[in-house]
């Protein structure tokens, strides 16, 4: 535990300098890792929809040791094709290509019940209620047109800059530079005020939009493996999984989500269906969820409790306690899980 806390502190120090003012999709909500979702090891079994832009690393702690269960998520279509696209072209992109921009590739490993597994999954967003790039009111508020006062100062500053660049004697130069500094300071003061307003608006918007509706579709492959030494990896069975998850908000503090998942491993079919109730904000929220699992005609129920605590825009700690019940509602297992998500955007 001490080691975990130490690592969290280190992570938060590393993440703080990267804090950005410009909101990104992960400012509103950080989704769960698709590969961890497929493996069923996330603190919340009901997948948390959403999309990133760039990279995310998840570190799962579900046992007493810190042996790493790690997931890496990347959004290749966004990074290769959309990241450098201008806003108008992005907005005019057709539905299919725009949804493809959310395609997320994820790879994860875990050790569950003494079985080591690796999962590779792909997830795409089918619908999202809110896209910050499409929100023109947000864009105009973050980077507003200048008011008359600012324009007047800008005009005076420009006049001095032109004199300095296009012809002034050395005698004039000193006084012009002094005057330029004065107008630069005045302009900076007004710009800082505008940026503070923009930051306030952005924060309010993040609070309002953390629970917007979204639907994700995912597919993945799981391989179980044995590994003694580095050069002795051997896969012994595998399977495929398909899932759909969706969420919608009620008011500003409730997020209701659900998912259906099908996995076929070693000719054994497993079905999962669940619903999650989350209360709070993008910074801190609690959840309770119910998942029904049917595996090889054996049914069980999982009830999980937990939450998300966001240390900053890049670092999220998810925690959960899963309780597994038999079909007769007898408690069979109890498992605490902590997941540290670090977003690079």
């Amino acid at each position, binding site marked *: 535990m001490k080691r975990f806390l130490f690592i969290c502190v280190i992570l938060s120090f590393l993440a703080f300098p990267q804090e950005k003012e410009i909101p990104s999709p992960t400012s509103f909500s950080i989704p769960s890792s698709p590969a961890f979702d497929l493996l069923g090891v996330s603190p919340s079994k009901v997948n948390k929809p959403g999309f990133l832009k760039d990279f995310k690393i998840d570190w799962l702690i579900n046992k007493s040791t810190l042996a790493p269960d790690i997931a890496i998520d990347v959004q290749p279509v966004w990074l290769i094709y959309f990241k450098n696209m201008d806003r108008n072209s992005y907005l005019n992109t057709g539905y299919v290509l725009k949804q493809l921009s959310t395609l997320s590739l994820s790879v994860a490993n875990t050790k569950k019940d003494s079985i080591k597994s690796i999962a590779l999954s792909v997830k795409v967003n089918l619908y999202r209620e809110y896209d910050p790039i499409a929100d023109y009111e947000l864009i105009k508020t973050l980077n507003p047109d*200048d008011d008359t006062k600012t324009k007047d100062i800008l005009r005076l500053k420009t006049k001095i800059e032109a004199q300095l660049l296009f012809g002034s004697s050395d005698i004039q130069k000193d006084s012009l530079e002094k005057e330029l500094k004065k107008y630069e300071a005045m302009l900076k003061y007004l710009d800082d005020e505008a940026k503070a307003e923009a930051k306030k608006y952005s924060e309010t918007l993040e609070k309002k939009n953390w629970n917007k509706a979204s639907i994700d579709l995912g597919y993945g492959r799981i391989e179980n493996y044995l590994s003694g030494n580095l050069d002795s990896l051997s896969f012994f069975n595998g399977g495929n999984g398909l899932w759909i998850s969706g969420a919608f908000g009620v008011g500003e503090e409730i997020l209701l989500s659900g998912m259906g998942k099908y996995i076929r491993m070693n000719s054994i079919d497993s079905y999962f269906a669940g619903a999650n109730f989350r209360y709070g904000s993008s910074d801190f929220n609690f959840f309770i969820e119910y998942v029904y699992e049917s595996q090889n005609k054996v049914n069980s129920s999982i009830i999980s409790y937990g939450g998300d605590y966001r240390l900053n825009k890049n670092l999220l700690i998810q925690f959960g306690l899963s309780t597994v019940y038999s079909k007769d509602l007898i408690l069979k297992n109890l498992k605490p899980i902590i997941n540290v998500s670090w977003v690079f955007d």
Partner: protein
Amino acid sequence: MATKGNVSFNPQGGPVMLEISSGYSTTGSFILSTAKKGEYDFHEFGSGRVDDNIRDFFLIPIPLQELPNYILVVNGKYGPAPGHQQIRIEYTFTQDSKVLSVIPDTSEKIEETTNEFFLRFTNFFDFKNGE
């Protein structure tokens, strides 16, 4: 930070146009003004936003014979869109559908990376007879 570029044009050609284009989901606004050299009394002749889905194409409102006596300035206030950090703006001068050369060619381009909501840019241009 102000930059200065020199545009070569043909005084016998058609009107000189300026197009402002953006990349990397750049947001923000610009103001275009001209002033006579030596007087530096700038008059705005155009403004707009790079993020509004409207093409930003402007006629420079100075007779060609007079153009070498004038300065044009673009006061830009640009920032990255949500989910971005990059800013890219290009100022392209054209005459009779041909792109005019600007020296140095870096003066007509803005490429920046920032975490701030917006940054300010001042790009001055003057004109010379390119014949």
